[in-house]
């Protein structure tokens, strides 16, 4: 709890530091706040403390996810030092809003009450709506912000309506009680409860961008400032899945038949739609948006396999995915700058010639996303498949494997561009800090793949 309070306080401090008109101190202060918050989080490991009449339970699950999100946010802030250098005004707000969003994410990992989940989702979303419109003069950015806001509010409405219906049926917001209430029906739920649960799931599915509720994500990812996109693709997705898992694990499992089928269909749709759309993309950000939808499908697969280790596999998958995605966006930012603002895949041409080390680390990161050994991404997919196959979902696993193959095509398409010659190469400039961070991420992805890492949650 102290971690959440501290995070809020630091968010406000950073916001006020904006008056100082000194951009250089913002990132260090923000990162200090995150680090202290991380220490405080880890201190609570194993305690399982409850707050607000049990509306929040901070257990090992939430701490593990919180720390993983903190690490990724620190990474994004470190990259932000360089990214926001050119921005004249409102830099403090950027950091502060991301910290506020992170606070919301913390609530999403530790709720045990539907109201708390709703609060978490809203606290996460509202800063994001603003962040997505961060480039005020850009048409795309405005479009992204507006689209995200409209569709997001729509999903929120669904979600709230679902909560209301469930409350109407069960007279409680408290997840364990809802679980008991559902259990007494033995799988044949009354329509009101069923519809309510369905709406709640739709609301969460929208946040994690599972097909068919994914339509916002490519446009929003494309239009938003790239660093915000990186934040959305990683931290927000992790938070969404933590909430999803908690919702299912604490309240809804075992799912009633129709709902489980719905979720399976959504899983397969994400894998299929994400892949098919990604094959045709020429814009790198859109490509990563669709690839994120595919990864969502794999995370759903881990979650729906319902095993004791599902949570730890999910944590591993989200973390590894985030660790590869953020530096890829950063490499993209540098290539975009070198090519005067283009976002096509072809901007990667000539990377190997100019910066061989960068091309090598890009290879490692893309390999991790594609799930090839010896990277961590392979181990993550391997663990998901172990879960699903050992639970007997053979057909779906084979389907997912075929989808993984398709994924390799577009990741290696990007890689192929990076290793081919460019006609008129512009110099790629990269600061020492960013270079070091990309290398650290690449090495981490390799090491996480070589040395197994499990958190008992």
């Amino acid at each position: 709890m102290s971690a959440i309070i501290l995070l809020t306080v630091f968010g406000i401090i950073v916001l006020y530091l904006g008056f100082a008109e000194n951009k250089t101190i913002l990132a260090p202060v923000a990162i200090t706040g995150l680090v202290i918050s991380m220490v405080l989080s880890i201190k609570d490991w194993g305690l399982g403390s409850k707050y607000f009449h049990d509306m929040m339970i901070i257990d090992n699950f939430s701490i593990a996810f919180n720390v993983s999100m903190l690490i990724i946010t620190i990474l994004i802030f470190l990259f932000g030092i360089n990214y926001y250098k050119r921005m004249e005004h409102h830099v403090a707000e950027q950091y502060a809003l991301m910290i506020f969003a992170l606070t919301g994410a913390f609530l999403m990992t530790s709720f045990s009450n539907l109201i708390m989940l709703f609060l978490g989702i809203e606290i996460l979303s509202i800063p994001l709506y603003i962040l997505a419109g961060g480039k005020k003069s850009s048409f795309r950015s405005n479009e992204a912000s507006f689209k995200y806001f409209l569709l997001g509010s729509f999903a929120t409405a669904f979600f709230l309506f679902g909560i209301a219906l469930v409350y109407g049926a069960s007279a409680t917001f408290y997840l364990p009680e809802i679980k008991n209430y559902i259990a007494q029906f033995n799988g044949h739920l009354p329509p009101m409860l069923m519809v309510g649960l369905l709406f709640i799931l739709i609301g969460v599915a929208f946040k994690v961008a599972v097909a068919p509720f994914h339509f916002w994500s490519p446009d929003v990812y494309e239009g938003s400032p790239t660093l915000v996109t990186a934040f959305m693709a990683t931290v927000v997705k992790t938070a969404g899945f933590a909430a999803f898992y908690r919702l299912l694990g604490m309240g809804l499992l075992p799912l009633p038949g129709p709902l489980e089928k719905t979720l399976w269909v959504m899983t397969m749709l994400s894998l299929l739609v994400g892949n098919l759309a990604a094959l045709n993309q020429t814009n790198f950000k859109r490509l990563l948006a669709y690839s994120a939808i595919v990864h969502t499908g794999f995370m759903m697969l881990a979650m729906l396999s319902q095993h004791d280790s599902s949570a730890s596999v999910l944590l591993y998958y989200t973390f590894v995915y985030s660790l590869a995605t953020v530096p890829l966006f950063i490499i993209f930012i540098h290539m975009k700058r070198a090519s005067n603002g283009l976002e096509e895949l072809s901007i990667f041409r000539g990377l190997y010639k100019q910066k061989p080390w960068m091309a090598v680390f890009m290879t490692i990161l893309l390999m991790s996303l594609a799930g090839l050994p010896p990277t961590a991404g392979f181990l993550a997919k391997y663990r998901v498949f172990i879960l699903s196959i050992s639970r007997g979902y053979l057909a779906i696993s084979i389907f997912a494997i075929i989808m993984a193959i398709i994924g390799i095509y577009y990741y290696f398409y990007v890689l192929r561009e990076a290793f081919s010659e460019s006609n008129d190469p512009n110099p790629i400039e990269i600061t020492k800090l960013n270079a070091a961070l990309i290398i650290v991420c690449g090495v981490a992805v390799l090491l996480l793949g070589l040395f197994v890492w499990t958190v008992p949650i």
Partner: protein
Amino acid sequence: MILIIILLLPVITGLFLLLLRNPATVRFIALGSALVNLILTLGLISTVPSTTYTIDSTHFMGTQFTLGYDGISLIMLLLTNLLFPFIILSGFTRAHIKIPVLNFLILFTQSSLIGVFLAQNAFLFYIFWELTLIPVYFILLLWGGENRRAVTLKFFIYTLTGSLFLLFGIIYLYTWTGSLHTTDFSAFNQLHLPADTQTWLFWILFIAFAIKLPIFPFHTWQPSTYTMASKQGVMILAGVMTKMGIYGALRFLFPIVPQGVLFWQNTVITMCLIGVVYASVIAFRQTNIKRLIAFSSMAHISLMAAAMFALNYYSLQGLLFQVISHGVTIVALFYLVHLIQERTGTLELPQMGGLKLAAPNMAILLLMVVLGSIALPLTSGFVGEFLIITGLAKQSIWIAVFGGLTMILGAIYMLYAYQRIMLGDENPALSKIKDVQVIDYLILIPLIAIIFILGVYPQPILNLLEESVNSMQKLLIPANEVVTLFLR
């Protein structure tokens, strides 16, 4: 410990090479490392191949890091370490860009290939199996020929498709081990899966190897990839990587899904024989020498795959002998093709002819390799293919007849191609080319010597194979049990 050294020496040398700048130093160090590995392997073979070397390290990718070898692994190890010095040496002739990177990738490939052949654990096997693909992908992408970007991607996706099904198979087998929670081959071999599971699991496992070999309907990546690959790339692909398919099939299919093998035996043999005839006929129509040899290689590999599924002593012995023989021959053949291309600047048969007048020594060397390739008596190809045909004849005379077409059709298209390259009237365009030089002799003479020595005196290898075939028959005991059950 010696296995660890053999496994890691190439890749560590390769990493060291990345720090160097001088091309000559890089080449000599790479060659030296490959030679040391060859000597270590020969030393390993001279000792009794019975021990399994194990390191228990559960924290390596969550699995046991178990290395070991039996007869089959040894043959594959010998082939890999025998060919890599030549592959590295063949890079001495031409000035490439980024020599350290190229040699690093080649040595990296060598390490991962050795890993594939030594892994005693299916998960580890899979890691190395995939790992081979990555350096090869970059060798093809960065040093390949015309249209390399599209072809490389196709090759990569094609092979990965198979691999991922293999991964599915491994995880599925893992779930069958139950409370053991292991992917060790020794545990997999004890599984005794139900027959209907074996029939479908066979294809899940086999598809990866069928693509790698490649056999008939899965071969479409092969000709274009071979044709555009650089000299060293194609040598690695054709010489060693195809053997991964044979090794994998022997490791996975026969001990783990014996009833599946028996069930699909005739189907696969038929596919292989279609491949033999199909590849031979297409090879005959090629005008590009490299493409021609790619198809000829496919015909020979298909014959070997057929031998593998004939499941008897002679065919297995022939198969393993042919692993060495085909590897050596195809590497020599591709080296010569590239030599011709470097000298004449073309690969097209119609533009050649009369080369013998300008380069008589090259003509002699090519003739000897071609004879080895078409399995003329006194060459190693003859010993291998004769044993294979004998084995096939034990299965069915018709299989042997169609299998034998490899040799007959092979003789036709290879000699025809030889005739169009070397013989004929003096060709004014090619009259000024240089003949074979010292470096070419250094590569070709040892390879040709191996071809002929093994052809005349195959006993040392056959003795070594005795061990291998015995160990393989140990693997095949479950299958044989089923066979006898079936016959009764």
